[in-house]
C-alpha cells in the first residue's frame, strides 16, 4: 500500500464484535452460575453484594454477577451481544461496575448492543445496571429482549444520560421488549439525539438531561398491580396491562433521575424496596 493512498478507515478496521453469555441454575437449593463467558470488552465476573439491591437483600444463596465494560465504548461500528439465561427457580442479580459511555467511532457508523434474556419458571432476575451515557455524535442502538415465564419475577432499571456534561447527545435508541409467557407485556423504543425529531419537545423528553425507568414484574399482581401513581411532576408509576408496573422519570441529571427512580421503587414497599 502506498503511503499516498487514503488511510484505511480506522473505525471500520477496529470494529469490535463481542459475544458474552451468562447462565444460572438452581442446584441444591442455592442459585449458582452455570455458564459465564466474557468476550472482549464484555467482562462478566462473579461478584458480591454492592449497595442497595432489591428482592435479594444480601442473601447468600443468590448468584451475583457484575458486568464491566473492559474498554470505553461501545464505539461506532461495535457490535456487542450478551445472552442471559436465568434457569428455573434460580435467582440472578446482575450489576454493573460503572456507567457505560457510548462514543462515536472514528468514521462514524452505528454501534449496537443486543441483550437477550430468558427468565425461566420460578426464577428471579434483578438487573441493576449503571446509566448509559450517550456522548456527542454517538450513534447507538440498544436492544433488550426479555422473555419471562408467567410465574417468574423480575426488576430492572434503565437509565440514559443525554450527553456528557454540557454536551448535546448523539443519536441514541433503546428498545426494551418484554414478553411474558410469549405474550407482549412491555415494548418501548426510546430515541433521542439530532435524528429524533421532537424528542426534546414537550411530548417526549422536554429539556431533560436524563431519562430512565424501572420495570417490575411480579406474578402475585395478576389481579391487582399497584395503582398508577404520578409521584412527581416528572415521574410516574404506571401499572402495565399485566402483573407489572413501569416507573418512568425524566430529570436534569443522572443523580436526580436516580433519586426519582429509587423513590418509585421504595413506594412499592416490600419486597422491592431495597
Amino acid at each position, binding site marked *: 500500500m502506498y503511503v499516498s493512498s487514503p488511510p484505511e478507515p480506522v473505525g471500520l478496521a477496529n470494529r469490535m464484535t463481542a459475544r458474552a453469555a451468562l447462565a444460572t441454575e438452581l442446584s441444591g437449593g442455592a442459585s449458582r452460575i452455570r455458564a459465564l463467558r466474557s468476550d472482549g470488552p464484555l467482562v462478566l465476573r462473579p461478584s458480591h453484594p454492592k449497595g442497595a439491591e432489591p428482592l435479594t437483600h444480601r442473601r447468600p444463596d443468590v448468584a451475583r454477577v457484575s458486568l464491566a465494560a473492559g474498554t470505553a465504548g461501545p464505539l461506532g461500528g461495535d457490535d456487542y451481544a450478551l445472552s442471559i439465561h436465568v434457569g428455573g427457580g434460580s435467582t440472578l442479580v446482575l450489576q454493573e461496575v460503572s456507567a457505560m459511555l457510548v462514543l462515536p467511532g472514528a468514521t462514524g457508523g452505528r454501534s449496537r448492543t443486543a441483550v437477550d434474556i430468558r427468565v425461566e419458571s420460578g426464577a428471579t432476575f434483578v438487573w441493576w445496571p449503571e446509566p448509559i451515557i450517550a456522548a456527542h455524535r454517538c450513534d447507538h442502538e440498544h436492544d433488550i429482549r426479555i422473555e419471562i415465564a408467567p410465574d417468574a419475577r423480575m426488576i430492572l432499571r434503565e437509565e440514559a444520560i443525554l450527553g456528557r456534561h454540557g454536551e448535546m447527545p448523539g443519536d441514541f435508541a433503546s428498545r426494551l421488549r418484554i414478553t411474558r409467557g410469549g405474550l407482549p*407485556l412491555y415494548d418501548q423504543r426510546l430515541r433521542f439525539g439530532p435524528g429524533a425529531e421532537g*424528542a426534546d419537545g414537550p411530548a*417526549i423528553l422536554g429539556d431533560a438531561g436524563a431519562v430512565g425507568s424501572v420495570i417490575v414484574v411480579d406474578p402475585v399482581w395478576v389481579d391487582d398491580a399497584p395503582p398508577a401513581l404520578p409521584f412527581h411532576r416528572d415521574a410516574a408509576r404506571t401499572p402495565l396491562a399485566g402483573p407489572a408496573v413501569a416507573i*418512568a422519570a425524566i430529570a436534569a441529571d443522572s443523580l436526580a433521575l436516580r433519586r426519582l427512580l429509587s423513590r418509585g421503587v421504595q413506594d412499592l414497599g416490600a419486597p422491592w424496596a431495597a
Partner: protein
Amino acid sequence: MARAAGGSAALLLLADGRLPAGGYAHSGGLEPAVTAGRITDMAGVERFLIGRAETAGLTAAAFAAAACSRAARDDLSDLSGLEAELDARIPSPELRTVSRNLGRQLRRAMAGIHPHPHYATLGAAPHQPIVMGVAAAVLGLGPRDAALAILHETNSGAAAAAAKVLRVDPFEVHAILARMADRLDRLAGEAAAAAAGPACDLPAPASPLADIAAEHHRRTHVRLFAS
C-alpha cells in the same frame, strides 16, 4: 374491497374531526403538557405536535394500518394479538383507557354510519387505531389510508385544543398543520410498510412525558379536556 377511484372522499370522511365519535373531548395530551408548564407558546405547540406524531401518532398509524390490512383480508382472528401488542406499547393505564374509550366510540359511530359485521367481532373495548383500521377496510380504503386518517384526526384534534387552552392565533395553528403535512405523509408510509410485517415488529416509540402527564391530568381537578 379496494375502491376504483382511490377512495379519497371516504378517507376524508374518516379523518374528519366532525365525525361524531367524541374525539372533541380530548386534546391528545396537549392540555396536560400545558398544565405541566411545558408548553407556553406556539413554538411549544409545534414541538409537541411533532413529537407526538413521531411517537404516539406513528404507533397508532401502524396499528391502524395493520388492522386495516387484516380486516381487508377478512382475517380478524389476529386482531386480539394486535390489541395486546398495542397495550404493551402504552405504559400509562390512563392512555390505554382513553384509547379504548375512543375505540368504543368510533365503533359505535361507524356501526351506525356504515354498518358492517366486522364491528360486532371487535372485543368489548377495542383500541381506537384497531377500529380505525377496520373502519378504513370496511370503507374500501387501504392500510396507508387508515394510517393517514388516524394521524390526521389525532394531530388536528390536538392542534384544535390549543385554541382553547392557550392564547393562540388559529391561523398559526393551521400553519403548523400545513408544515406537518409532509411529515404525516411520511409517517403514514412508514406505518403502512411496518404493517406488512409481523405485529411484534410494529413501531414502539416511547414518549415518557406523555405518559407521566396523562396520569397527572387524570388527577387534576380543573381540566377542559378528558385527556
